[in-house]
């Protein structure tokens, strides 16, 4: 047996740290140069008056950008829209996905079709998803208005240009685009639930809701929390979908924070100001992550 233990060493035990570093460097260098570096650089830029295409030197201006942001009503409006969007997409998406995952966990005949079709929204480029829904929402040639006309519910509405309808219309697309991914993740989580537990609970006379609460949910909880946190973060970072659908219009009603920052930086050239916006969004994401981690810790205490 000692020979096996000795043989274990070369591959099983950590090699010298130098060898490990050598293997890690090829990935580490680009990571440091192209993501950690720019991130820190961006934090610095937020405290400067950096602008694109100007000849004067960039100056350190302290917290002035943040002060300006505080008083920028357009920014707060986009912040509010961003919150409505992130929650408005994530929450219905989760509830729908949970229902669907429970449904697809059943022994149903058309299950394969749902799984096969789920690839479509998931794999599509976001730009194409946006274009596709523009075609669907089109006031004249769109399928939505035509269906409504068939059902005698009117139609002829220009969903993406209406001040009241644009944001809800865009949120529906967001839900559609991420639904399969969330469903598949929850479904995979469900399949970790031991069948025997369900059967035992059923024999004990537990109703469907009780079985869900006591058997399914505890197993599903970590997956549900993780996917919800990821979805929230992805939605805070959303850009392409809304850029293609409305480009922030009408009248800024769908101008998500990312669109706002993009315009500030690359249309008006306000690099420092846009970087400050970026910092605010990082703070928001950090809070989301903290809430998520707190939720996980509480889950750990329960068990």
């Amino acid at each position: 047996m000692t020979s096996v233990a000795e043989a274990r060493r070369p591959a099983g035990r950590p090699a010298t740290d130098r060898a490990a570093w050598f293997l890690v460097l090829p990935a580490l260098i680009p990571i440091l140069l192209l993501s950690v570096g720019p991130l820190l650089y961006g934090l610095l830029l937020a405290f400067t008056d950096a602008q694109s295409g100007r000849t004067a030197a960039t100056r350190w201006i302290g917290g002035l950008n943040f002060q300006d942001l505080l008083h920028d009503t357009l920014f707060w409006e986009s912040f509010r829209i961003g919150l409505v969007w992130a929650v408005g997409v994530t929450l219905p998406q989760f509830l729908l996905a949970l229902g669907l995952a429970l449904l697809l966990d059943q022994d149903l005949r058309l299950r394969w079709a749902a799984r096969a079709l789920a690839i479509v929204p998931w794999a599509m480029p976001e730009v194409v998803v946006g274009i596709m829904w523009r075609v669907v929402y089109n006031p004249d040639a769109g399928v939505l208005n035509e269906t409504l006309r068939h059902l005698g519910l009117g139609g002829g509405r220009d969903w993406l240009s209406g001040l009241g309808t644009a944001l809800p219309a865009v949120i529906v697309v967001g839900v559609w685009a991420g639904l399969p991914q969330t469903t598949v993740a929850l479904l995979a989580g469900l399949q970790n639930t031991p069948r025997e537990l369900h059967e035992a609970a059923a024999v004990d006379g537990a109703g469907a809701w009780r079985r869900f609460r006591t058997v399914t949910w505890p197993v599903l909880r970590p997956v549900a929390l993780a996917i919800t946190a990821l979805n929230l973060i992805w939605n805070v970072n959303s850009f392409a979908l809304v850029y293609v659908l409305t480009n922030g219009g009408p009248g800024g009603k769908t101008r998500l924070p990312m669109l706002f920052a993009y315009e500030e930086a690359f249309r008006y050239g306000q690099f420092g100001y846009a970087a400050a916006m970026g910092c605010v969004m990082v703070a928001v994401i950090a809070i989301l992550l903290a809430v998520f981690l707190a939720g996980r810790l509480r889950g750990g205490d329960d068990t």
Partner: protein
Amino acid sequence: MRNHRTPRTATTPSPAGRTAARAGQYAALLAYLVFLAFPFLWLLSTAFKTPRELGSLHPAWIPRHPTLGNFRQAFDEQPLLHAALNSLLVALGAAVVAVLLATPMAYVMARHRGPLARAATGWVVISQAFPFVLVIIPLFLVLKNLRLIDSLAGLVLVYVVWSLPFALWMLVGYVRAVPVELEEAAAVDGAGRLRTLVSVTAPLLAPGLAATALFAFVTAWNEFFFALVLLKTPEHQTLPVVLTHFIGAEGVADLGPLAAAASLATLPSLLVFALIQRRITSGLLTGAVKS
């Protein structure tokens, strides 16, 4: 529709109740299928319609005189072929480079438990929350100084770094699936560390490497934000960016060619994704849950 939210894993009491529940389940499933499929089918249907049909106030579900005119017009209006070639080059480049760089690091993360591996894991988790806004401006400036702005090579670099975290997650899983005992056996036979990696581990990793490369490919093929910011001249732009040119400045779009071009742009991702969907799901889950 009624029962689709209720978990119903064990049997329901009465046969009548059971039939009703089943009917409800099928209704919910059907609603889901329609919701998933309809936008896509409408896009395809629109792509084959004649201008006259598109102009009619009561659009047909299925084009009555299917035409390829929209596709021809799409190719005439925008450099679609060239854009697709750009996308292909960028996506292939990003996939190959990402896998080459990620594999050694994933190996270390999977087999070692040092502070290095822990730090790498932590970074992978954090990168899921990466703030694009804060990164894009400095990245723009950095690439500009490196004279890599408006170049496909610069975009490849960005995409490589961007898909590395998830690629690492997938690869760590694949490395862990290769039994350490095999490597040990090779070591006993006197093979050096590098020999062991190349002749024993690498062949067993091949399917995982392929799946990871395909994932990086789709990510790059679909990406829009970085491409929009970093590519200025039309002849360098990738397919998603060129697609948005079909939507005019006032948001007015010629629906037929727009739908035709959009349908075509989806095909490669759909094909690739059909191949690796299962693997991405498991990668997503381990990444999300074990973090």
